[in-house]
């Protein structure tokens, strides 16, 4: 087994895992009950899924400038997806899309949680 084979297999594994995470993100978008929980599904598994797919493609293509382009895609995914989810979440929050039962402000800042752990 040569280095090329190893890289190919690693690339395939990354592609597969990334695709599975994207699938899970899609299922989450369908199953989760409200806007903000859907944003969780739309950000985290989605970002890692895309990063893994990019890594997989990079491991299989192995040419310098292509990898640069892939790094760029990954970087912009990391920068834009949280900002996008923040904007959607904020818009939903401000326009009252979130049921009041889900709003929980909890303790004020500075108060000490004196209950025992666990």
């Amino acid at each position, binding site marked *: 087994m040569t280095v090329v084979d190893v890289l190919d297999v690693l690339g395939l594994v990354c592609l597969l895992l990334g695709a599975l995470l994207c699938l899970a993100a899609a299922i*989450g978008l369908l199953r989760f009950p409200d806007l903000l929980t859907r944003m969780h599904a739309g950000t985290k*598994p989605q970002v890692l899924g895309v990063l893994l797919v990019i890594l997989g493609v990079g491991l299989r293509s192995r040419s310098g*400038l292509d990898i640069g382009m892939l790094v760029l895609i990954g970087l912009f995914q990391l920068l834009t997806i949280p*900002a996008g989810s923040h904007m959607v979440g904020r818009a939903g929050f401000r326009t009252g899309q979130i049921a009041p039962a889900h709003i929980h402000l909890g303790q004020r800042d500075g108060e000490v949680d004196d209950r025992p752990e666990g």
Partner: protein
Amino acid sequence: MTGADRQRGRRGVRRLLPPVSPWGLLWLTVVWVLLWGSLNVLNLLGGLLVALLVLVLFPLPRVDLHLRVRPLGLLVLLGRFLVDLVRASVEVAWLSVRPGPVATGVVMDLQLATDDPLLQTLTAEMVSLVPGSVVVELDPGSRVLTLHALNVRTRHQAEQVRHKVRAQEARVLRALHPDPASVLDPRRHRNGSRGAGPETTTTQEAP
């Protein structure tokens, strides 16, 4: 022509040109070349031209960076972020495909320690990608971060999420803030050693 003359001349020319940051120019050119996927003279010149056009037509406000990069802190920040990203993805992926009732969450407030808008933004962006939380709103003036926490039911769990977010912010500060102790140390915090500005804004939290 003396050196002083030449300098004055250059400054005169510079005043006529719109302010273009050389780093911005370099970065946009690199992005252009990478997007084309091959390095040749045409791409390089085209990239420079496009970068110049973008920087002249869409000038950004100057950002005053009061940052000091600490390599070790940065390494901790990035390493922990990668681990958290993987954990968060697997967690949320599992929550979305597991059988049984679907997960819900709560919205909560939290006070950040820093007033620096850039560090607040960085913290908020990273918090969106680590386990348990998505940012809903950030008020830079009062430093209140509103976030949504997934799969949280009790106050204790909410407190754990707060603790995690504060730890994330502390890592950002330790990596980039010029004097993290002044912000993170509660004793110095209370004595008001951070300067006059932010102390005048009091936070009104909803009851």
